[in-house]
């Protein structure tokens, strides 16, 4: 593997729409995503059910409170953490940029005369493009997490926060191993896993430096906590003489007594486990040279744009993220397009929030629109990050940043109509940047006017039941007269721009209300009133504790 990985250079959130379109027609990808996100979601669901909804909510609230406490006093806790690391013989390096972090690690490897290091999975090292930087400096970084190893062999990037090779089927991995490792092809997962163990054991045996991320940094004690299932992090932190841990400034929590809450939430949210196979708490360097473990311990604390996020009160909470990946697994957008379509390191809803902040809104303007705003991400987030609100906030910022003339299709200042209208926004935005004729631009502007008009009429019809029923009758009439026959199907109204990205089911010949009226004889108006009364009562009941 002498080629220089180009992961640092791949920043393609601008081509999100194109990436997504390609992903949707990629059948193996669709199959792999469906298997993996399905299994992860149901495992998480079962684990949360076992804790009980009430207890789960208590844990989430506590985790949120601890994160709020730490992030709002980050200067204090980081100071304390770093002092404690140094007190116990560790070295702390403060890196404001990705380059500073990479340079420090490369120089450290050179100082020890090393041209290869072993590393465990770390989104932070993906973010700072460490493998690329080390390769440029003549140092090979060997990924040892099985998923990361697969992705590295394939010359790709991880497509999920904690399931890096989620986009690959066993057949893909079998082909890859046969080609790159020169072994006989097998699709047996235990055999492929055993092969990776053998190959990587040999690298561990020779390694002089091990590099890891950090799950939690304990301010009180200067301890770093590492959570895993495979054991490669333990190997990385036990065998080589030098251990380097890279962490974002947001990873610190106050004390050891805060850890249990996060372990409970993280493992259940990520994989549905009560506890991962291994959790390592590492503090400083060993007291005597006769003991096991590294001789040197370095912590690299990285800003790389996080302080800017800290300053934005609307988005500060995105630093609470513990990288469990649950929001990816439930996201209807992620589940269809996978991680690579997002174009940078962090995919899914949390990626759509972090990426524009970290690499610039103009570089990732499409991402906040890559959501149906269904709210599932916010519901599963173990630290209660308000992801849907943040996505809306970022959409607002994207629109604010656009020149006024391209904003013409939003006349209404009302939040709701803006939210509805902007569901469509990413298409307009990304197509604009492709460069297109004046004709298609004006056609689009016209259809934007229609769309806006459509939503206005919709609002008028929906706010009154008589008007709604009248409108529905009218629409059915229009469908019967002007509808087009779908292939072998019923007639539907022709709305090509609308249906290009959505389904438009045909209107039923008789509405539910009409069928109900016929079968029960009850007047629908009363039913509607009863519904409204019932709803109000249940809302009151929810508000009273």
């Amino acid at each position: 593997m002498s080629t220089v990985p180009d992961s640092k250079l791949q920043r393609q959130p601008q081509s999100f729409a194109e990436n997504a379109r390609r992903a949707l027609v990629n059948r193996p990808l669709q199959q792999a995503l469906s298997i993996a996100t399905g299994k992860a979601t149901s495992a998480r669901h079962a684990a949360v059910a076992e804790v009980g909804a009430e207890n789960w909510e208590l844990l989430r609230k506590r985790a949120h409170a601890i994160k709020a406490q730490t992030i709002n006093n980050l200067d204090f806790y980081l100071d304390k953490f770093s002092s404690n690391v140094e007190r116990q013989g560790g070295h702390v390096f403060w890196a404001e940029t990705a380059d500073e972090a990479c340079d420090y690690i490369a120089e450290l490897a050179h100082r020890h005369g090393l041209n290869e290091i072993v590393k465990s999975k770390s989104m932070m090292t993906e973010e700072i493009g460490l493998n690329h930087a080390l390769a440029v400096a003549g140092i090979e970084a060997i990924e040892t997490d099985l998923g990361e190893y697969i992705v590295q062999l394939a010359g790709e990037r991880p497509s999920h926060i904690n399931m890096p090779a989620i986009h690959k089927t066993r057949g893909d991995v079998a082909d890859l191993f046969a080609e790159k490792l020169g072994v006989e092809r097998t699709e047996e997962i235990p055999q492929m896993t055993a092969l990776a163990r053998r190959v990587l054991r040999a690298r561990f045996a020779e390694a002089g430096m091990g590099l890891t991320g950090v799950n939690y940094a304990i301010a009180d004690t200067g301890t770093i906590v590492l959570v895993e299932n495979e054991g490669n992090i333990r190997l990385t932190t036990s065998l080589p003489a030098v251990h380097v841990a890279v962490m974002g400034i947001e990873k610190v929590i106050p004390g050891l007594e805060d850890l249990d809450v996060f372990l409970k939430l993280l493992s259940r949210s990520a994989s549905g486990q009560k506890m991962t196979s291994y959790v390592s708490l590492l503090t400083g360097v060993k007291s005597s040279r006769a003991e096991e473990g590294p001789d040197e311990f370095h912590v690299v604390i990285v800003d790389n744009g996080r302080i800017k996020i800290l300053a934005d009160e609307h988005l500060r909470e995105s630093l609470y993220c513990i990288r469990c990946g649950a929001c990816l697994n439930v996201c209807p957008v992620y589940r269809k397009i996978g991680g690579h379509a997002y174009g940078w390191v962090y995919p899914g809803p949390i990626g759509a929030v972090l990426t524009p902040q970290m690499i610039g809104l103009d570089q990732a303007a499409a991402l906040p629109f890559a959501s149906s705003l269904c709210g599932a991400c916010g519901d599963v987030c173990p630290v209660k990050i308000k992801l849907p609100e943040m996505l809306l906030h970022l959409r607002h910022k994207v629109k604010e940043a656009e020149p006024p003339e391209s904003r013409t299709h939003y006349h209404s200042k009302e939040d709701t109509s803006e939210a509805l209208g902007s569901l469509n926004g990413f298409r307009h935005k990304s197509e604009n940047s492709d460069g297109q004729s004046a004709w298609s631009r004006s056609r689009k502007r016209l259809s934007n006017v229609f769309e806006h008009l459509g939503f206005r009429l919709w609002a008028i019809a929906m706010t009154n039941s008589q008007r709604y029923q009248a409108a529905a009758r009218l629409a059915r009439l229009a469908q019967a007269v002007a509808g087009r026959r779908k292939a072998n199907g019923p007639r539907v109204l022709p709305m090509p721009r609308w249906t290009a990205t959505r389904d438009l089911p045909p209107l039923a010949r008789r509405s539910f209300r009409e069928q109900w009226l016929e079968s029960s004889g009850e007047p629908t108006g009363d039913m509607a009133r009863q519904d409204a009364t019932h709803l109000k009562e249940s809302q009151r009941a929810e508000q009273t504790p």
Partner: protein
Amino acid sequence: MSMESSSQSRERMLSRIRAALGHSSIGSAPDELEPFLTKAPAGNGYSLVDRFGEELRRAGGQVAHVKSRDEVGRYIADLQIDDIKASVAVSDGRLIRDLGLRDLLQSQGSEIVTTLAEFRGDDRDSKSQYQRVLLECAIGVTAADYALADTGTLVLVSGGEQHRLISLLPPVHVCLLSPHLIFPSLTQLLSHAKAGSYSGGTPPQALTCITGPSRTADIEQTITLGVHGPQSLHVLIYSPE
């Protein structure tokens, strides 16, 4: 890399953080959060030992109750059924020393791997020699410092015992556990430990929590055991009669 000192770069980063948060000066200790009182895990009539065993089995580990030194010996001999000469690495954990387990296994005909202490592991050569030997070893035997009932977790602590490699490199890990070392959960253990052994604020250099064998689900979310660490974990709960 600049020649700037570490304290300068730390001060610069912290002052930028203060500015972002709107803090005017160096933050004093923030008010601590109210203690979080989780209900102790429901007993359901279980003892801590039963709960521990049940959770460990769920995590893919195996549990056996042993009453004597000989039973420990027999259990390990049964693991060697295919290869009676399979090499065994034995840690310097207290229970293991108390039982004289090393001598016992040797008398059973097992090849015992030299421990790090015997290598006089104060130089790099002897350390890497130790690592190489362990990489080839079939069974690692350790003793747990603590265990957690609610998750079926073993807790091994550096300092008293060289546990890190013996519990990780061989494909089979056997761990001895005294039942009185089982705590309800991590929170209880940490508060016990904070009040006791490392009240000075310095935890052991390495505290390792082990819950079941090494596992991965990186290929099609299919769980596969023994990817980097042991493929099987046997916990022998030792209660002498």
